[in-house]
């Protein structure tokens, strides 16, 4: 199996677009040839030295994913597309946050969304209702999006120059941190119904992220969650983190986040 063509974890992955009939798009994983599939290509190795020998690779394990992520990044740069990779545990409010942000942003910039989930188009349907292009990647048993899935998804999405592309990753604070998708920035979301020690318990995710959004702050009076402590914990893991505290439900704190995104859209 091959990470380059996507036939590793995403063997079951399919793309679905809300509002479009005609089923879904399979990742078409077996449609191109594999270097390692034929076995009948010529070799120029030396048969004079049979037996064992050592071959140096010195390559990153995720090299194929990373190369494809760079292709995505190049595509985004050429089209002046600003891609944000939204990451969090399930239920922290990624989709609600997008529902709150997109109506405010789409007046001034084109917005498109890639939704990642194991099953269902529930989130994509919610984004579709906002009137922006959206595509759902169902990863099947996969626990994260990878660069190949995003590469296939962006071929199906209308992406005019200057688009803000929001990629909502599979809800999972572990695996998605490992996989570069070609995004400009990783945005991790944590909600006040989780523990304020989340950044210490899942340090890789917070270490890899550029931005942290604390969501559901409207619930702070009702839960035992120390927002300051959470922020300190996050900053200890990654002192470069940009920090926002919002309630996607009430709109509290959303204005500074929106301004920051608009600023980034101009400058990236």
């Amino acid at each position, binding site marked *: 199996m091959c*990470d380059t063509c996507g036939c590793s974890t995403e063997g079951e992955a399919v793309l679905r677009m809300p509002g479009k009939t005609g089923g879904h798009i399979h990742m078409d994983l077996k449609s191109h040839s*594999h270097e390692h599939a034929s076995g009948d290509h010529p*070799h120029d190795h030396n048969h004079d030295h049979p037996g064992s020998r050592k*071959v140096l690779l*010195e390559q990153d*394990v995720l090299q*194929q994913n990373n190369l494809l992520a760079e292709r995505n990044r190049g595509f985004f740069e050429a089209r002046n597309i600003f891609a944000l990779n939204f990451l969090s545990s399930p239920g922290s409010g990624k989709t609600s946050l997008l529902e709150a942000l997109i109506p405010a942003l789409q007046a001034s910039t084109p917005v498109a969304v890639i939704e990642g989930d194991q099953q269902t188009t529930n989130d994509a349907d919610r984004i579709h209702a906002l009137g922006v292009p959206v595509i759902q990647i169902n990863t099947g048993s996969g626990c994260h999006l990878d660069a190949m899935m995003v590469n296939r998804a962006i071929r199906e999405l209308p992406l005019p120059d200057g688009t803000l592309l929001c990629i909502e990753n599979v809800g999972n604070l572990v695996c998605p941190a490992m996989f570069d998708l070609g995004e400009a920035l990783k945005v991790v979301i944590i909600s006040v119904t989780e523990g304020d020690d989340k950044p210490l318990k899942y340090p890789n995710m917070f270490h890899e992220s550029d931005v942290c959004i604390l969501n559901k702050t409207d619930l702070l009076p009702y839960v035992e969650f120390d927002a300051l402590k959470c922020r300190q914990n996050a900053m200890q893991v990654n002192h470069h983190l940009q920090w926002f505290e919002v309630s996607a439900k009430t709109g509290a704190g959303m204005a500074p986040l929106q301004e920051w995104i608009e600023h980034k859209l101009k400058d990236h």
Partner: protein
Amino acid sequence: MHEMSIAMSIVDAVDAKARAEGAVRISLIELKIGKLAGILPEALRFCFSAAATGSLAGQAQLVIDEPDGRGRCSDCGHEFSVDFYYARCPECGSLRIVIVSGEEFLIQSIIIDEEGE
């Protein structure tokens, strides 16, 4: 369980390389996985045997080098060992620590057999 997709990536990379080198099988794979890389070597070993089935690496032994984490203080430049992204400089107490090693995640080499027994 990202170790499974990572195991598949490793199998894919070494299988392709071994075939290009004219191998009939891979007997050993050397990996370098830093202790801060976010990979559990034991979980990876567990997944690897399943991922490698049917490939040239089906019988390969995994040798995993696990370098310790090292951090450098951005304020005073002191370098010291770390076992977590969060560390305090033992010299000046600063928390502005940059990880300089321990995040490695490399396929270093493979040992291949060129002719079948």
